[in-house]
């Protein structure tokens, strides 16, 4: 086939026009669709809660700092780690933690007030904040961690490739990496008299794990393990429902949330 210069230029010009108009045509037919799919319009949301289920469910945890003491903290941590077969390595380098204790200046480094002697001596329980805008979910390259419609930031160990981006992204240090096979230590602990929760799996080497708000218990209609262990210090409920117990407590008590200035919108509240 032969083509003169005139015909070629016409064809090239037409092709370029179609190419340039491509994205514009998309915008014309389905406005906002392309951007939405790329996740560009998800930020700056004022209301706490998933867009899709804002009016329905947004699970949150309230921790009454005033009601915590050495005894119930130990019970809470033990219950959680028993329920989820979390090994106790004893070495901070290999440590796996779902819920743990720390002090005021480490929990609120941004708003630490050295003259606040009430909070200074208080025990704080730390766990995954199940953020409304979770940075771990944004950085996970395989969507192993994802936000459920009820607000729980879940971790899918089947998908996790152990890249630890989520650990770098999490501003709360809520995630632990299995450097070693957790079963190796669990076997030692079982030999020493530890009990396993036989209805819950373990993890494998090379995956990241964290608190899951006891999603497996919620599915059965039971409260999270920590709430069951200390019902007078921990409260769990639906933040999206203005008539829920957690909302009524939040109306009456002063509450703190960790690192609010980062915009992650944590769902764990500390009652003072």
């Amino acid at each position, binding site marked *: 086939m032969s083509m003169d210069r005139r015909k070629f230029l016409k064809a090239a010009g037409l092709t370029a026009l179609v190419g340039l108009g491509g994205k514009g045509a998309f915008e014309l037919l389905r406005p906002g669709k392309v951007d939405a799919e790329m996740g560009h319009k998800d930020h700056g949301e004022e209301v706490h809660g998933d867009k899709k289920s804002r009016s329905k469910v947004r699970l949150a945890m309230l921790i009454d700092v005033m009601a915590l003491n050495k005894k119930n903290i130990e019970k809470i941590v033990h219950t959680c780690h028993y329920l989820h077969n979390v090994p106790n390595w004893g070495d901070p380098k290999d440590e796996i933690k779902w819920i743990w204790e720390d002090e005021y200046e480490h929990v609120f480094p941004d708003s630490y007030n050295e003259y606040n002697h009430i909070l200074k001596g208080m025990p704080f329980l730390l766990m995954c904040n199940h953020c409304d805008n979770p940075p771990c979910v944004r950085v996970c390259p395989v969507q192993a961690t994802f936000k459920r*419609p009820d607000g729980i930031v879940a971790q*899918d160990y089947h998908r996790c490739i152990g890249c630890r981006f989520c650990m770098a992204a999490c501003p709360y240090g809520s995630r632990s990496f299995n450097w070693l096979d957790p079963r190796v230590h669990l076997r030692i602990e079982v030999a020493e008299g530890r009990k396993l929760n036989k*209805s819950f799996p373990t*993890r494998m080497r090379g995956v990241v794990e964290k608190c899951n708000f006891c999603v497996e218990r919620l*599915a059965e209609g039971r409260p999270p393990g920590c709430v069951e262990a200390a019902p007078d210090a921990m409260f769990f409920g639906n933040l999206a429902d203005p008539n829920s117990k957690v909302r009524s407590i939040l109306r009456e008590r002063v509450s703190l949330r960790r690192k609010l200035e980062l915009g992650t919108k944590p769902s764990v509240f500390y009652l003072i």
Partner: protein
Amino acid sequence: MYDAGKVMIGLAVFACIFLFPFLYNHGEASPKPKPSLDTPAIKALPQKKCVEDTRFMITTHMQFLNHWRDQALRDGNRWYVNKEGRKIWISLQNTCLRCHSNKKEFCDKCHNYAGVEPYCWDCHYDPNGSKL
């Protein structure tokens, strides 16, 4: 051909070594595995039926379990409704292994025969066994 004798001897030695495992095991095919259904929970069933029919479970349980995994974990829906309309709680460790409480004689039998190592057992374990 130079050194024909040596080459031939070499070839013969090679053939002997190469063929040895085939000749040694000749006619001794490992018997087809028979996964055992002999557990108290299965015996107590009025009708010996798994979640779906046996044929389907034998051929498709791998994809089926993946489907269960995604449904329970990703979609948060822990109920499975089978073809008969029976509702079943989705859980490998708490549903499958409750009836099939003999992982060694059931799951492992075929998996070992077929030489597959499903990574299910990296995290999930037999709640009936004493070992982790």
